């Protein structure tokens, strides 16, 4: 794990500094200053308005406006309401939250304090992916430190606001990153996404109003409150302000994390920041936002990495996990690997998802092995149609999109397998 991104900005500037992980080191860099001021001088509504004006988009995949989501929370009452930090990061191709958790735990806690204050939550849960043992350890230590210093617990920083943070470890399931499955898991139940409505702001964790936010989303908050919405809007695009952590993996010279403004062109990220494709090879396709996002062919890499532009190309920013594939890559084999993941991870509630993910995987595996037919390829598109938008959660869409996009942009690969009855991409990895 790298200690800091190759390119840093406000979120990750001090990540390389081991001291930054401790409360003292964090405060030495101006940490908790925003919280000190805001908790004492700003009303919850003022905090919420600032974040809303900043136009902060959720960084967990769906890109929903954070301030707007917070405004759905009912007015605080006697019964508790909760903030839940989604640290389940399991999307293949995404590894940004891990860095923020391990290297800047107090930044997240400060974000949590501010968000919790804005929505009137009495308690927060940080739900950390089971495999992220180190992150959980670091977070727990930070929580203890903050408690000892009076930054958590009763009367935080003498503001009259009380708040507790509970660190919870998941048990290893991709679906538990979906916010309502996460809530079920948090309650000790099976990680099955809930039917909506009710939405978490109506009935979330333990039947109480809750807001679920991604780690990175919350990490932006202290900076917005510290420096103002206008400052935040000075980077990124009009519709997608701020920076984000792009994670680049695959066939590039310099894989890793890059904190760059939203809207940075994809080809700039790949060729300038990540050093281009190794061995002088060419790009064949790029998944721009984590495994679930539709792949882009080599010809479309000039796109600005923000939802409004990616959507025009039929894809989306997702979690900003960029997976680069060079020209040796067999896209049928890619489809096999991707579909196997979704087959393995579907929670299995919804008929179309449970059966569709398996069916897709069976068919593409057959095509890869050379026994596919032209009808199979048409059928794959129909199966995607039958899954998208037809289920309880967005997992089924996430499973269908990549396959549909691979077929759309790399149909020739599929056709060749059908025609030749064999996979002729020798350089590609084995199934």
């Amino acid at each position: 794990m790298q200690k800091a991104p190759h390119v840093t900005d406000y979120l990750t500037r001090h990540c390389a500094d081991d001291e930054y992980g401790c409360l003292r080191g964090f405060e030495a860099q101006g940490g908790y200053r925003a919280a000190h001021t805001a908790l004492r001088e700003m009303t919850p509504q003022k905090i919420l308005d600032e974040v809303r004006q900043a136009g902060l988009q959720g960084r967990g995949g769906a890109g929903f406006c954070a301030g707007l989501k917070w405004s759905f929370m009912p007015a605080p009452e006697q019964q508790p309401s909760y903030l839940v930090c989604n640290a389940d990061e399991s999307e293949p191709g995404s590894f940004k939250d891990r860095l923020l958790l391990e290297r800047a735990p107090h930044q997240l806690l400060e974000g949590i304090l501010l968000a919790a204050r804005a929505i009137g939550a009495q308690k927060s849960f940080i739900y950390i992916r089971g495999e992220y043992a180190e992150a959980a350890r670091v977070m727990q230590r930070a929580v203890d430190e903050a408690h000892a210093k009076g930054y958590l617990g009763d009367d935080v920083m003498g503001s009259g606001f009380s708040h507790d943070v509970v660190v919870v470890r998941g048990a290893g399931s991709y679906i538990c990153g979906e916010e309502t499955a996460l809530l079920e898991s948090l309650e000790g139940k099976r990680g099955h996404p809930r039917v909506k409505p009710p939405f978490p702001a109506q009935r979330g964790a333990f039947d109480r109003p809750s807001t679920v936010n991604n780690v990175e989303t919350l990490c932006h908050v202290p900076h917005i409150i510290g420096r103002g919405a206008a400052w935040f809007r000075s980077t990124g695009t009009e519709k997608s302000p701020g920076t984000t952590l792009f994670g680049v993996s695959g066939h590039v010279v310099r894989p890793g994390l890059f904190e760059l403004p939203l809207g940075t062109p994809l080809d700039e990220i790949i060729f300038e920041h990540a050093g281009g494709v190794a061995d002088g090879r060419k790009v064949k396709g790029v998944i721009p936002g984590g495994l679930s996002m539709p792949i882009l062919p080599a010809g479309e890499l000039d796109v600005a990495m923000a939802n409004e532009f990616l959507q025009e190309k039929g894809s989306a920013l997702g979690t900003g996990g960029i997976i680069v594939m060079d020209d040796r890559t067999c896209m049928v084999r890619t489809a096999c690997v991707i579909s196997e993941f979704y087959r393995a991870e579907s929670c299995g509630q919804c008929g179309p998802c449970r059966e569709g993910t398996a069916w897709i995987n069976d068919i593409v595996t057959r095509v890869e092995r050379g026994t596919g037919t032209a009808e199979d390829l048409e059928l794959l598109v129909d199966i995607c149609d039958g899954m998208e938008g037809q289920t309880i959660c967005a997992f089924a869409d996430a499973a269908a999109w990549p396959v549909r996009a691979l077929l759309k942009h790399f149909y020739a690969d599929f056709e060749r397998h059908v025609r030749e009855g064999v996979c002729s991409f020798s350089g590609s990895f084995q199934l």
Partner: protein
Amino acid sequence: MATAAGVACEAEIVRITVDGLEYRLHAGPSLLAALDQIGVLMGEVDIPHYCWHAKLSSDGSCRLCQVEIDGQTGLQTACNTPVRDGMIVHTRSEAVVRARQTVLEFLMLNHPLDCPVCDQAGECKLQDYAWRYGAPNSRSREPRRKLEKRIDLGPGVVLDRERCILCRRCVRFCREIPRTGELAVFGRGDRSVIGLFPGVQLDNAYSMNVVDLCPVGALTSRDFRCKARAWQLESVEGVCGGCARGCNIWLDVAKGEVQRYRPRRNDAVNDTWMCDAGRLSYAEIARSDRLDKAWIRNQESVLEPVSVASAISEAARMLAGLVAEKGAGVIAGIASPHATNEDLFAFKRLLDEIGTENSGLAVPHGEADELLICAEKAANATGARAIGFEDARSLLERIRGGGVDGIVILGHDILTAGYLDDETLLGKIDSVILIDTHQSSLMRVAQVVLPARHLAEKAGTLTNCDRRVQRVRPALAADSELLTEGEIVHRLALALGLNGFEAGYDLPRVSRSLAAAVPPFAGITIESLPSDGAQLVSDGGEKGAVR
């Protein structure tokens, strides 16, 4: 009783349009629940569904119930879309038709298609919907999933995992109704299977309801397994006689026998459930100890078979002799809480017209719970009390004191209820006339034994623990020698020449007289009784004697 899906009674009434027809219904619940509440779901409005069930929490996973709603993008699941005023719903649009086809194709992908050997065939929602809404052919070339086909979940239920469509009704039932939670989904994605938690069995008192709930043949009844095909069964409305709840049931008949009981929905009584003991109690109808002929004790003190007519004459002769010799005060009657209101009313009138006040009622008791099972193990104790039968204990005292010389006994509850250890005490009575469905040791002391029809073989009404009067209909044709208790005592009354018994037993007439004579029954007659029953009029006046 309380319902799981809860009907918000005070909810505002709204108007919605479904396929061009307007409906007025409660705002708040889901579209499916609201349509179900007004009784049009799967009648006039056809929205196929698997995971949703009127009495369970909503699940939203099968995705079959999708409909189009004006103003909303994409399709919505009717099982969890709340009803709103002015909603315009389409259930037959092209998008809906396509969505149903797709969902069914998914669910059929791995289905074993073993309908020819499946008990559910003919009453299977997968068959029905695939036929009605599915595409004619499967496009899958992949091998079907192989899973265990016979898992004994408990004493009553067998699971076939290949047939399961994972609607999770069974799981929710166990969690929400008996609250025993034996079942769960294990594994994830296409490895999901229904199973038992380690170390438990599906053996709660209501376990077999999962068989009715299961829309496919994944859960079958061990009792009914391979006994009859669904299309051979004729279903008759009835009421379970197992306890005072009087759960509404279907009696499924084939080959002249009741093959099974199944719960029949009545939201005021049993929702859609019944207990396993009640469900399996159909077996008593054809049990080998059924009484099927009349007997008279001969000179040698041995019971010998006779016609019903001669048995009745003999009984009348005995009773008439006793009355003439010692007066009506030596005659007594014991009523059965298993008999119908009409039987008991006829019996009460017989005793009244003979001129005796000696009567009693013995009700067997057992375990009760908070769901359906009542402590009174008979279907009509409440009716018997309303008609004027009081506890048999004081009558037994009288018998012990030697004050009874002739007695007419309906049933053998006096033994099963534990009032008497055996028949010895009754042996002291000169003339014991026994009218019963099954043999018992009371026959040892009976001078005359008359066989009576079982609940499944007759028409009549029963009054449940909540004072609800419910109707039973004959599911089986009974032998002409087998009469109801009501008709037997009526004939006995005629043979005795008693007042007010017209020739020929006419059930509707008896029912009308009951309504006229016993205040709680005012207005309730067998012919006007709705199929979900009606409440007894007053709550007090329990011992409403014949007017």
